[in-house]
């Protein structure tokens, strides 16, 4: 009994000491009062050196937190109790957030660097006039594959995936919108199609893909493809460039039937505490040199026109990751289909996953 008591007492004392050290550290580094900025971003989606540079330039301390899906991020902002100053949602989520009044309009006069953004990425349908958001990164969805493992075979379309030679060689991502969208695209329908007949046809077509599907996974897809666990995988352009840098044999293609083009934009959520600091941060990230550094670290495509001149030629010229406007015009941006349709997508996806060949 005495021993147990001693044990508990030790734990209490150690915890109290750690708390005190933590509080001391925070205040000595300036993490107190109104001099902080909380950034809420996707995991591994910023060059950490840039955060340090921003802190040095402005004297503002950055608290950096990450999320792994638009939905999770939105739920956290909606429910309150958080004080995020910056968030980085994707296109269709921005529409939803504006509808729900979760965003604060941007003051463009405080963002002089916005002149560097390529006009092609401004004033897009999800945020006319960029009232609420500034472009951060953009990219496409497509297929990463290993020509060496396929005996030199090339993949150019979604329908190539149904090739019987690819038995047990395909990795899909665990996401309804992407996989059902793939089925829709392969039949020539739009990614934003909500026609029940079309969706059922897409699901039926996907069921026949099952023998080729090795697994439906999450972020591990990068490791699995680089390790040649499977020859083909669905992924996004930035993930693809990272995977390719780990295994030079791999190639990335945007299927010819069409695919998804997406934009991640910086916004100021209504939970903001430091609105001046938030504008400073957005302007800092729009600076061409910073944007170039960030793009090189993250691997996604930067919407910053001026930044391209600070980046290696072979990266910028790579049509796989910087496709021309003519090509991206054919790709589709996800629209907010409403909760009910999304639920239906997920239901179909669940049935697809349960479909055993």
């Amino acid at each position: 009994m005495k021993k147990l008591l001693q044990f508990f007492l030790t734990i209490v004392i150690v915890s109290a000491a750690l708390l005190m050290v933590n509080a001391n550290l925070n205040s000595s580094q300036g993490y107190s009062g109104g001099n902080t900025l909380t950034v809420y971003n996707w995991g591994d989606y910023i060059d950490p050196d840039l955060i340090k540079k921003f802190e040095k330039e402005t004297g503002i301390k950055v608290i950096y937190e990450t999320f792994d899906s638009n939905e999770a991020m939105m739920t956290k902002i909606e429910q309150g109790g958080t004080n995020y100053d910056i968030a980085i949602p994707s296109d269709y989520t921005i529409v939803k957030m504006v509808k729900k009044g979760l965003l604060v309009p941007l003051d463009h006069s405080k963002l002089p660097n916005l002149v560097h953004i390529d006009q092609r990425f401004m004033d897009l349908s999800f945020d006319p006039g960029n009232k609420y958001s500034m472009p951060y990164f953009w990219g496409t969805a497509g297929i990463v594959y290993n020509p060496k493992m396929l005996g030199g075979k090339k993949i150019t379309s979604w329908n190539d995936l149904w090739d019987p030679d690819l038995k047990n060689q395909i990795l899909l991502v665990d996401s309804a919108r992407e996989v059902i969208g793939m089925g829709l695209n392969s039949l020539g329908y739009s990614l934003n199609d909500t026609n029940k007949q079309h969706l059922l046809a897409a699901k039926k077509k996907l069921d026949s893909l099952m023998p080729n599907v090795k697994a439906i996974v999450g972020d591990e897809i990068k490791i699995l493809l680089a390790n040649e666990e499977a020859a083909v995988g669905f992924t996004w352009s930035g993930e693809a460039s990272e995977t390719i840098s780990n295994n030079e044999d791999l190639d990335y293609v945007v299927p010819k039937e069409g695919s998804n083009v997406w934009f991640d934009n910086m916004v100021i959520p209504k939970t903001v505490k430091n609105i001046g600091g938030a504008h400073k941060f957005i302007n800092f990230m729009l600076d061409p040199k910073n944007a170039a550094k960030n793009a090189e670290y993250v691997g996604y495509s930067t919407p910053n026109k001026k930044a391209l001149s600070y980046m290696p030629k072979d990266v910028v010229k790579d049509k796989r990751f910087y496709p021309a406007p003519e090509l991206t015009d054919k790709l589709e941006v996800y629209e907010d289909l409403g909760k009910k349709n999304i639920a239906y997508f997920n239901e179909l996806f669940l049935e697809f996953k349960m479909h055993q060949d």
Partner: protein
Amino acid sequence: MESKLSRNLYSFSYFLWIVIFVILPILLIVYYSLFDIEGNFSFVNYQKFFTAVYLKMTLSSFWYAFLITVITFLIAYPTAYLLTKTKHKQFWLLLIIVPSWINLLLKAYAFLGIFGTYGVANSFLKIIGMGEQQILFTDFSFVFVSVYIFIPFMILPIFNSLNELNPTLLDAARDLGASAWTAFYRVIFPLTIDGVKSGWQVTFIPALSLFMLTRLIAGNKVITLGTAIEQQFLVTQDWGMGSTIAVFLILIMILFMFLTNTRKRGV
């Protein structure tokens, strides 16, 4: 001296705990399950649950949890028995417990490497002449990793009840002419049945709602109720349907607790 007041005070904190952390959350789950995706009161979620997709999923969750529990038990009981016979039993027990302190996610990622096409397991299979096999993303790998994870939890209660067993009882049984096997299943096993029951409970119930391993190790080729709940809450944001699945999961758990608790003691 314990007064009635202090006893009430003690039980008050217990009841407060139960109400806040057990009863209220369950009521909340039941409440949420009564709303459809647009927030209207309806039983549509319950209707949906009784369709082929969810019933199949329930059955398969049940089947995998059962399989995992049985295999874990078959490995854990003899291991626990042998442990009680060793000289430094607490030390050997500790060695088995230690891996359970490591984060589950970390262990799952380690298995990704081990079971991969170019992993250790396949190199071994090649050496013994069985050739390359697909191990990752199969039922086998899912059950194997789950069993590995649950073994310590099954061993602990069984070890404790075996350890408390009075060894003279066994001697008495043998003196009275029981064979080793008869002594085991007429004396040892009935006396340790409580440990076995709690071992089954701590394995079967979490196994029923495993969700991360179904993606990492089974590549979503195994779909359990846990996976479906995760999807409904985080992706679809259909809290009603997620709660409905959870209600059924809780019902299965209660049923299982009931079954393992009321069986007659002894033989």
